[in-house]
């Protein structure tokens, strides 16, 4: 599942015994994903607007072109920062539990540490082979080390995220910038822009600062192999490469079939499926 809207047209929802869905209302994007008997069927991603609306838009995107209606779905689980606003969801589960469950489903039972770098927060999760979260750490209030700060920095240097990632990996030289505060780091960067430092070095410096910040969070909880990176910033090879370098650990290679931003919503859909099955067996 990748792209803004994705459907597996080989599948037929009318033949499914259990239709389960997840909806993840993140700070930057909202996602929905539908499973037919445990297999990914349709997904969608939209930019987050006022929460309730984004939840609905994301689900509408996943349903479009499938012929499925909301009432056909047996169980929907909401997750993410605005999960509570997804009023059509039957249950809610934290993004910690969902991130762990989704990661183990995609990369397999060897996963023990999940680093989730989202738009507004960064989290490290330990989990079991069954995808059960056992411990976690969350970034503090500061925006350093999360997607929003990367976007703001891109605006400062006038480049998109993909371009800055490529430059960061290429540049050997980089100045030391604050890894304590996103605002301090950008203020320092602005001084360097004015002192005519090559923009490539500046970008590399900022990426190194962000990667140090993220790596500290991983080290505080402890690194247990296997290690995977999920969330929107997992698509940024500049960040993932530098984080791996600092931690001296390679993360499992991204699954080309899966957008890493969809991992928590997959977890939410897996929880929804589990609830359906348990309800069925109870009945």
């Amino acid at each position, binding site marked *: 599942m990748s792209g803004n809207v994705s459907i597996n047209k080989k599948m037929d929802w009318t033949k499914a015994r259990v239709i389960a869905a997840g909806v993840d209302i993140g700070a930057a994007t909202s996602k929905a994903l539908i499973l037919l008997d445990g297999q990914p069927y349709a997904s969608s991603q939209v930019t987050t607007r006022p929460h309730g609306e984004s939840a609905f838009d994301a689900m509408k995107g996943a349903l479009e072109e499938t012929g499925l209606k909301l009432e056909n779905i047996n169980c929907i689980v909401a997750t993410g*920062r*605005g999960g*509570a606003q997804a009023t059509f969801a039957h249950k*809610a*589960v*934290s*993004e*910690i*539990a969902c991130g762990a*469950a989704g990661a183990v489903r995609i990369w397999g039972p060897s996963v023990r540490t999940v680093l989730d770098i989202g738009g507004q*927060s960064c989290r490290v999760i330990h989990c079991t082979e*069954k*995808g*059960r*979260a*056992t*411990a*976690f*750490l*969350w970034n*503090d*209030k500061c925006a350093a080390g999360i997607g929003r700060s990367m976007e703001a920095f891109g605006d400062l240097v006038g480049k998109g995220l993909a371009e800055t990632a490529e430059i960061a990996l290429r540049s050997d030289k980089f100045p030391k910038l604050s890894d304590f505060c996103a605002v301090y780091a950008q203020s320092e960067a602005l001084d360097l822009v004015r002192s005519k430092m090559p923009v490539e070095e500046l970008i590399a410096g900022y990426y190194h600062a962000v990667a140090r910040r993220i790596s500290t969070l991983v080290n505080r909880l402890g690194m247990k192999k296997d290690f995977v990176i999920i969330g929107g910033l997992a698509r940024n090879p500049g960040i993932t490469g530098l984080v791996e370098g600092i931690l001296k650990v390679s993360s499992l290679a991204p699954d080309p079939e899966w957008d890493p931003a969809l991992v928590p919503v997959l*977890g939410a859909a*897996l*929880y929804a*499926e*589990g609830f359906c099955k348990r309800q069925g067996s109870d009945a």
Partner: protein
Amino acid sequence: MEKKGRDAIIERFRHIAENTPEYVRSLKEKGRLSAGYMCTHVPEEILYAAGIVPLRILTSHESQAMTRGYIHETYCSFSHDCAYQGLKGDYDHLDLIVTSSSCIHMGEAFNVWVRFAGFQDKSYLMQYPHIIHTKPAGGFMAESFKQFKEFVEKLTKRSVTDNDLEEAIKVYNHNRRLLKRLWEFLRHDRPPITGPEVAAVTLASQVMDKKECNGMLEQLIERLEAEPGQAAPGVRLMVTGGACDDLGLFDLMEHLRYDTSIIFIDSCTAARYFWFEVPEGRHDKLEALAEGYIGKIPCPAKDTVPGTGEKKRFRFVQQFIEDFKPDGVIFLYQRFCSPQPMDVVALKPIVDKLGIPSTELELDTTVPKAQFQTQLEALVEIIKGVTP
């Protein structure tokens, strides 16, 4: 009818805890002297013995940009908030402001009151030993308390006798025992009172005339003892860390999507405030006070055993875990506080070893409630072993 009485008492306690300046004004109207204190190392008994009502300066949870010019940005929000209330004039009715040389952040909040809020001539900074686990600490404290007593005598123009001190010690010890009985209810499987309610009562006790407080506590305990317990507490959560008087945050901890209960709060705004006693009937009252205050659950700012670096507070925390049996632990501390989060570095492995899941919440003037809620719910999911 009985139930209504219990609720009314708790509501009154909560109202006082959340409206301290109003309570101070009411004391003034009754002709009482009152002293604000900024750290629980201040021996309230000496003030009380002199006829002064001691009350703790708590926070208002208002954004306080105006204090940035007086206290450094990277001082904790609790100190900024306390300084703010002095500057705002919320406590102009106080006759005295006191603190002890313990937390440097609160020390600066105190200085703001002294320098800029009109308390130049009605303030006292008490000396307190930097490390309390040393032989000379007791003597140092007794001498410091003696100087404080002399200051108070000068202020009130009356002498504080041994009888006055003994009476105050008894009133305060009685208050501590009553509060302890209240917290003991939370050990039960079906407690007749909730964690946030107990937290509210404990906060109120820090700002009230102790005799009035004791009377209300006795009535409350009597009613609670006669009541059957309420609902089963669900997942039992223990909070440990620094000063927190945000009752809304404790309410949040019990209003998650899962059933949860706060069963213990180890902080200087909760159990650490009262979980000790001062020896009664001693010949030297000031030495007795020093012994009592040294025996408190130590504040992390004072708690290092010279030579070993041992933190004595951890022994208490482990005992509380054994007695109150939490399923999960919440480390709660003020952003920019140094001693509290440093304690977490050493305390978390102990909690991990006991197999108790934990999470950390960092406090500021206002808190990101949605994020805290998610963190708390994730903690509960870990405790419950939730799987897809």
